[in-house]
């Protein structure tokens, strides 16, 4: 019996695995506090991935003569990768090799991947799919509070607040076990406000559901602050004592009176007033954003606008209150802290900070000058593949950008321009199928490693079964590559050894893990960072005394509302938005291969009955959905849950992201997944 954690989302529910390979079963681990024994169907069926018949068990190398992937030995595969790296860097320079990581990789892997890029490849071209997930909230968190950690408090705290705002989060479907905290909250008399263009199962639980047009959450937040100001619900004392920048925001929102905001957002003015009163009159309130608010070309500013609302109401920096972001991927938090992001070094340090470079270079045993500078963000790196200053060879770990990148046709074409593509994955994902070398790697229950969940809690995902023969850990792959490339310094293969190095590298940084070790995680059911020395208790709740800005104050931001990058028009009359469904996860590489989930979750386009009548289609009819970037055919799902001017598609299949817009947020470089203009017609 092994206590470990689920392979999927950022909740990282505790689960108990029993039995060996081939007969492993999942049981509840009731003592783990985040989920208290609850699991969703993805968690219960996760063991189907162990010993799955589509599991890759041998490296595959594309035969230049036949164009087919053929089995190869590990030494052959590693040698081929090293040759291709040398060729690309010899011909085009160090940045000709790119590394693309993932928010599902353990902290150890994310750390070692960053080290591989900076020390062995010496390329600036490294980023990861979390850029498409967390980046807007991360950027906003840094600006507003001086520090980015998904939730600044344990998840269970949400049951203790009085009013909870969920902005662009469908918690009940994306992380069902978290919903019990909502139910506890409501049972205790607390209230829930949900902001979502769809009446999701989460919105069904809400005391107030605001249903804005996609891409207008920013204006909605301004409208709420306007009402707080007008109705004297601003916590003047908090604003004076613990924030800066309020006056500019107060004046900015004078132009956002409820009837004006109603025109922009499609949310009735009285609902805006009600929401503001709920926020302003609550003794304790929390404002949590998720991808619905964040995945926009103005995602950072949208988050900052909602932070303004929390700050104006005095709802931050004390127990039971605060702003937080509900992280998406399993290690969405840790994955952005330890160096697989283009502009960062371990410990959430900035790569352009000389002191950070000196510290990390010393841990790695290299000279600071040898470390590359900041590179391109995820989408920009992929969009430049094959260009004179872009990467010619790409190594992909734990990601499936053929399905998950916006404007996917363009990214697919870019991948085809590469001289060399290597993908490490557990199954033949859509991206792996295009690779020149495919490496079969271990998955969650077959390896040990730490993850940092939505709460900033560092947890230990323990190995429960042996991996299939022929499969190696990503850590082995990275270490083998480092050896083949004659990289300086050590590249550990043992997770705990790598973690101990990560602790040193993070020491003194914003995300300081130096006081955390495997034994403590075991004993304490996870440790919250920052934890700057061994005796330190960790930090379950941030900002109680001061915010992490230089002056200790949280910052208001006078951010401007603007239209979405693409608005509906005569040819493309609907807003198209995308999201997750309960039975699937991310690009579906795992969940689409679990039989019980594949049957439950199929692709569809959700539209309102009046829209269906206009198009003369019935539920289940084949619909062609077209945007300026692509087209796909999916069955119609007719539902009153969605706005009549908006349609929704889940993004777990090739299709949705052929349609989405690749307009980027100027600061976070987040693509505008959540809104574009689409045309629908019967197929």
């Amino acid at each position, binding site marked *: 019996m092994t206590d470990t954690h689920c392979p999927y989302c950022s909740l990282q529910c505790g689960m108990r695995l029993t039995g060996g390979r081939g007969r492993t079963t999942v049981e509840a681990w009731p003592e783990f506090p985040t989920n208290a024994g609850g699991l969703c169907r993805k968690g219960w069926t996760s063991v189907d991935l162990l010993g799955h018949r589509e599991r890759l068990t041998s490296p595959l190398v594309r035969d230049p003569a036949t164009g087919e992937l053929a089995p190869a030995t590990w030494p052959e595969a590693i040698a081929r990768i090293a040759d291709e790296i040398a060729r690309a860097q010899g011909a085009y320079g160090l940045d000709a090799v790119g590394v693309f990581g993932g928010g599902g990789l353990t902290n150890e892997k994310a750390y070692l991947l960053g080290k591989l890029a900076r020390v062995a490849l010496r390329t600036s071209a490294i980023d990861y799919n979390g850029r498409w997930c967390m980046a807007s909230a991360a950027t906003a968190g840094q600006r507003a509070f001086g520090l980015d950690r998904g939730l600044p408090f344990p998840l269970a705290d949400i049951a203790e607040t009085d009013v909870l705002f969920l902005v662009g989060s469908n918690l009940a479907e994306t992380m069902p076990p978290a919903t019990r905290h909502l139910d506890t909250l409501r049972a205790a008399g607390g209230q829930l406000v949900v902001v979502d263009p769809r009446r999701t199962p989460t919105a069904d639980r809400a005391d107030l559901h605001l249903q804005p047009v996609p891409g207008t959450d920013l204006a909605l937040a301004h409208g709420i602050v306007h009402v707080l100001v007008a109705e004297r619900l601003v916590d003047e004392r908090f604003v004076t004592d613990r924030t800066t920048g309020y006056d500019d925001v107060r004046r900015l929102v004078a132009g956002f009176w409820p009837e004006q905001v109603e025109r922009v957002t499609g949310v009735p003015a009285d609902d805006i007033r009600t929401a503001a009163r709920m926020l302003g009159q609550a003794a304790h309130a929390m404002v949590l954003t998720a991808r619905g608010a964040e995945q926009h070309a103005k995602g950072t500013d949208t988050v900052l606008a909602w932070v303004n609302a929390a700050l104006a109401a005095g709802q931050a920096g004390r127990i039971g209150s605060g702003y937080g972001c509900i992280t998406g991927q399993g290690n969405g938090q840790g994955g952005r802290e330890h160096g697989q992001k283009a502009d960062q070094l371990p410990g959430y340090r900035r790569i352009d900070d000389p002191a950070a470079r000196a510290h990390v270079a010393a841990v790695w045993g290299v000279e600071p000058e040898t470390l590359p500078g900041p590179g391109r963000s995820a989408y920009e790196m992929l969009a430049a593949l094959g260009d004179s200053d872009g990467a010619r060879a790409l190594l992909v770990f734990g990601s499936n950008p053929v399905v998950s990148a916006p404007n996917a046709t363009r990214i697919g074409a870019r991948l085809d321009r590469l001289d060399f593509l290597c993908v490490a994955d557990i199954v033949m994902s859509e991206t792996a199928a295009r690779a020149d070398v495919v490496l079969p790697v271990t998955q969650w229950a077959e390896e040990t490693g730490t993850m940092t969940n939505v709460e900033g809690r560092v947890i230990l995902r323990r190995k429960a079964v042996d991996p299939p023969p022929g499969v190696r850990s990503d850590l082995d792959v990275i270490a083998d590559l480092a050896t083949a490339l004659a990289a300086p310094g050590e590249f550990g293969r043992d997770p705990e050894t790598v973690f101990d190095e990560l602790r040193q590298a993070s020491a003194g940084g914003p995300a300081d893990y130096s006081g955390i070790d495997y034994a403590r995680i075991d004993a304490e059911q996870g440790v919250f960072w920052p934890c700057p020395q061994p005796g330190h208790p960790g930090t379950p709740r941030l900002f109680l005394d001061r915010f992490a800005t230089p002056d200790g104050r949280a910052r208001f931001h006078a951010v401007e509302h603007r239209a979405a990058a693409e608005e509906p*028009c005569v040819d493309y009359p609907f807003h198209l938005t995308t999201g997750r469904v309960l039975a699937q996860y991310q690009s579906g590489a795992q969940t689409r291969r679990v039989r*019980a989930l594949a049957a439950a979750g199929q692709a569809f386009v959700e539209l309102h009955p009046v829209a269906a009548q*206009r198009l003369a289609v019935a539920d289940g009819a084949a619909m062609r959905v077209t945007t300026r970037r692509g087209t796909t055919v999916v069955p119609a799902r007719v539902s009153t849950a969605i706005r009549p001017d908006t349609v929704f598609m889940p993004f777990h299949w090739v299709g949705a992201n052929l349609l989405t817009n690749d307009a980027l947020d100027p600061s976070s470089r987040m693509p505008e997944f959540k809104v574009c203009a689409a045309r629908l017609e019967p197929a």
Partner: protein
Amino acid sequence: MRPRERLVVVGHGMAAARLVDELVRRAAPYAITVIGDEPDPAYSRVLLSAVLERSHRGADIELRSAGWYADHGVRLVTGQRVLRVDRDRRDVWLADGTRHGYDRLVLATGARPLLPPIHGVVTPDGLHPAVHAFRSMADCRRLDQAASGARRAVVVGGGLLGLQVARALSVRGLDVEIVEVGPALMGRQLGPAGAQALARGVRGLGTEVYTGARAVGFSDSGLRLDNGFVLSADLVVLACGSRPATRLAQRSGLMVRRGVVVDDRLRSVSDDHVYAIGDCAEHRGRVHGFVGPAWDQAVALARTLTGSDRAYDGSRVVARLQATGLELAVLGDPERAVGERVEMANPLRGSYRKVVLRDGVLVAAVLIGDLSRIGVLTQHYDRRTVLGQTEAAWLLHGDASAPADAEVPDDVEVCACAGVSAGRIRSCRDRADVVARTRATTGCGSCSDVVDLLLPTPTSGRPHSGALLATK
């Protein structure tokens, strides 16, 4: 380096403030001077009635501080009138004798309230002390003060502004009456049925309405109407509409009809160096009086001034009453719009709704008393969405009636977390059996109640029909 062009904006209302905002945001290469005749910083004029109602304080509606202008290199002159524009020398003369040269001039002078010819309201010193106009912050302060000591007020004018002022004074505790010369409140926008619903709503809030009545004289005994009534009043507010403030443009020899005539670049048809936006501008024969078009024009002009050649092709207007207890929205011009009209009145609820469609596109609408569909209607209107034949009914009616209760079919999913159907729950003995065999209730836990209903009850041994969850 070539010196930056000088841009002078005459007026400091909502249009001017938005224009400057947009120019600053675009880092437009102009040396900007803004000249306003009000002493106050820019504010949201549309919220003056909210200040009067005291749902907002005066400071809450300030848009920009003087410091903001200074920080962004914009010269702000307040409390100064522009007396004339010398278009040959390209400069403007201020009342204090200073001159400001321009390369481009923007007129954003707004509108002036119309004062009806009522005997006794105008004295040689200006308005009678008990009589008020309502356009500026100064007007608002004066009325706010007067309202504190007053008991009875009469509002002359039953349009949007008149209604808002009447509601504000009523919320302040005054007895308020409205006098409208036309046959109905907002008669030009609403039509008889709509106006009736509105009047009912207004009366229901305790405000008497006199329509088809002209105020002819004001004296200590009150406001005398042409029908012989005399309404006693401590104060009278004139809300009889406004007229574009075009005197400066006229004196400068620019073409003025109702407003300063501009082309699709918002440029005066008489002078390439002069533009006009907001309430003072006349574009394609239309003058507005709403903030929406004024902002559209400000954005369009900022675009033009920063090199875009996109034309301004008019605005879609949504008039939204902002008054406690009264729900009203008018989209476009419902009485004059050409198209098919679909309307629905529910006198019991005091609601009235009408949409006007042309070739499937919503060209106008009225909503009174029930604005539950407004968030969809305005979106369709603004985006010119081509609607289906049955959509008008949906927009007027609301959702179809909820489906009747029925027994939950076996294939309906009860536990979304674990993906368990009602049938599988029914096949279980009890909760423990459910958990062991299906995992239902172990995820979010929210299906627990429903699961209990589907299980055999200990007493009867028969499962409940589960009718209660049929609408989910």
